[in-house]
């Protein structure tokens, strides 16, 4: 009896499954048609939503979302007199380039996105590039700053933020001109990981370009303790200490320097000091730290989606609960590039594979003014498809606030140099 029951229920189960599968298969085409009729542009965001780069990953996601919300609030992207909304899809690279490539492939194959918005890190961006090439899907990167991203001349990838070697290199020249008496010697510390190392190399090369003297160039492992390096540099007495690294290392550099009672005349860090958490973590010790940005809410640019940089900043502050930094701004501006290219392309969704290639060509011809600044991509050279138009602005933390201090035409306050000794 028991065995009869079992076989009966198994048969019923198999029969039921077959019915369900058939129904599913029959239903499939209708589902697909329904989706196609919604007629929206589909954009995939591939970035670090978990893992060690989650902070930056969220900055990028927030930036891309700001654009999607803004353009959808206006009815969508205008193509040949008709408006189409934008649907956002997300892929998590888990702070790991290989995972990023997989996630990008999923977005393209499963979600059938028309275009990708690029990862926070350069490592993931480089890993995703071959996927974009394989499926011929353009990718606009609002964050990746490594020069290596552009060296391989990625046909389908475009970058909004100037690569870090151009900005960190140029910033030392600005610092030398802004400081009084002018800084002469520089020591560079950088963390031995892709982005940080390239920032450090940018600083190192910028030293020579600015006519300064390099007294030390130290690569530290991310797990290392900073006391030996800081002690060594303190003994060399450079005017400027330049640091390539993410927030955590920047915070640790300041703490370790103070614990060794060492303060250079200027401490410049490329990334991270504009994140409010930096000044929050260090309190008064953050004051005087110099940083480099390619965008600030106080710049004078504007466009017709976000308005002025100030208006963008106010809107973003309301939504994100804190002032947006240049990464969020660069990502929001990525959307503007897409909107402009789609408009010029004049193709309605969903885009065909040929349309996507044409979209790539349209993006390459971008020449627009945005709240973020001018955007135009390089057509050749080591920064192929990168937007190297923006001029770096030197900022300093003064009284817990990030203020522009150089070059002169952008300065909102005097540059505090040399820094006073620790109290």
């Amino acid at each position, binding site marked *: 009896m028991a065995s009869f029951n079992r076989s009966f229920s198994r048969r019923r189960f198999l029969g039921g499954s077959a019915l369900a599968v058939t129904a599913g298969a029959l239903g499939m085409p209708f589902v697909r048609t329904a989706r196609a009729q919604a007629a929206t542009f589909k954009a995939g965001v591939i970035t670090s939503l978990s893992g060690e780069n*989650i902070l930056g990953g969220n900055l990028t996601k927030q930036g891309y979302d700001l654009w999607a919300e803004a353009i959808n609030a206006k009815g969508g992207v205008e193509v040949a007199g008709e408006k189409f909304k934008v649907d956002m899809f997300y892929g998590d690279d888990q702070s790991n380039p290989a995972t990023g490539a997989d996630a990008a492939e999923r977005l393209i194959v499963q979600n059938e996105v028309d275009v990708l918005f690029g990862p926070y890190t350069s490592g993931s961006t480089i890993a995703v590039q071959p996927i974009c090439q394989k499926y011929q899907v353009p990718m606009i990167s609002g964050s990746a700053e490594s020069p290596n991203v552009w060296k391989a001349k990625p046909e389908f990838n475009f970058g909004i933020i100037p690569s870090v070697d151009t900005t960190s290199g140029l910033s030392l020249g600005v610092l030398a001109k802004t400081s009084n008496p002018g800084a002469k010697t520089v020591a560079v510390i950088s963390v031995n990981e892709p982005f940080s190392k390239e920032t450090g190399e940018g600083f190192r090369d910028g030293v020579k370009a600015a006519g300064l003297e390099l007294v030390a160039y130290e690569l530290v492992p991310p*797990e290392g303790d900073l006391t030996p390096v800081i002690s060594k540099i303190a003994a060399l007495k450079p005017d400027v200490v330049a640091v390539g690294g993410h927030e955590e290392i920047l915070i640790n550099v300041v703490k370790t320097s103070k*614990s060794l*009672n060492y303060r250079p005349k200027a401490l410049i860090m490329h990334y991270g000091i504009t994140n409010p958490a930096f000044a929050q973590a260090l309190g008064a010790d953050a004051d005087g730290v110099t940083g480099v940005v390619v965008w600030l809410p106080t710049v004078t640019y504007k466009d017709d989606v976000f308005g002025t940089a100030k208006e963008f900043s106010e809107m973003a502050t309301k939504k994100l609960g804190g002032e947006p930094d240049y990464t969020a701004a660069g990502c929001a501006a990525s959307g503007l590039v897409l909107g402009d290219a789609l408009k010029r392309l004049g193709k309605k969704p969903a885009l065909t594979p040929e349309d996507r290639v044409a979209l790539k060509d349209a993006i390459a011809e971008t020449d627009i003014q945005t709240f973020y600044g001018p955007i135009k991509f390089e057509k050749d050279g080591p920064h192929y498809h990168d937007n190297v138009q923006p001029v770096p602005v030197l900022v300093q933390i003064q009284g817990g606030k990030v203020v522009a201090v150089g070059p002169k035409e952008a300065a909102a306050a005097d540059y505090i140099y040399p820094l006073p000794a620790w109290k």
Partner: protein
Amino acid sequence: MDLFLQTLLNGLLIGGVIATFTIAFQLTFGVLHVIDFAVGGWVVLGGYLGYYVTALLGLDGFVAIPLAFVLFGALGYLIGPVLYNVRNSRTARPELMALALTFGLFTLLRGGMLTAWGFNTRNVTSMLSGESLAVGPVIVPLIRVAAAVFAVAIAGGLFLFLYRTRYGLAIRATAENRHNAALMGVNIRRLSANVYGLYAGITAMAGVLMGAIYSVNPEVGLRYTLFAFFVAVLAGLGSVGGAVVAALMLGVIEAFVSTYVGSSYSLLAIFATLFVVLLASPKGILRRGL
């Protein structure tokens, strides 16, 4: 010469810092026979407690040290029996199951902290933060001295506890031979819970200091786990005294290589040391490991 002395001091203090979160890790291995992957998680939990005590209550970060012991010691006491059951279950390879459990605990702690407290890097401020003392040409960072003193005090306290008390005798007996200890009337299950609680509490206390010396975010835990593991292997797994010696050794090597060879070689030097010591003395530098 000045730089040499400064480097030596830096190295010893780095060693002291590493020792803080390694000592109890060794004890756990000795008694529970578990390599606790979650050690970094306990460190980070302590760091966050330090941050919240300063940020929300406006108190000195050091106030969090006893709090961390009580709070996370209690949490460890509750988790201890679970770990004990897994480690002594009848499944095949219970030691691997226990390792997987602590790895899972670590992932849970990390993910939980990320969700609850976000990804921003936080700082613990205390009366010693950024303070230093000039002794001749050498600058002594006081917060690190505090950590080294803490490490020595914990090691000394544990030593007294293990060798001068009846309960310490029971712990040592359990570490040596669990079955015989049980036959002599030691309640192994309760003892394991106590040891794990003690370990979690001490490690979280060290975490408050780590937050004050470096900074804390949910992602830094793995680094502490790795260093605890390096030190444990170098010291000989389970050897508490060896942990202090090994930590000091790693600290001094890191400092000298960073200063005189180049920072990028410091980890290479640490791994090379580990390799050579394991070849020459597989039971660790003091030959007391398991």
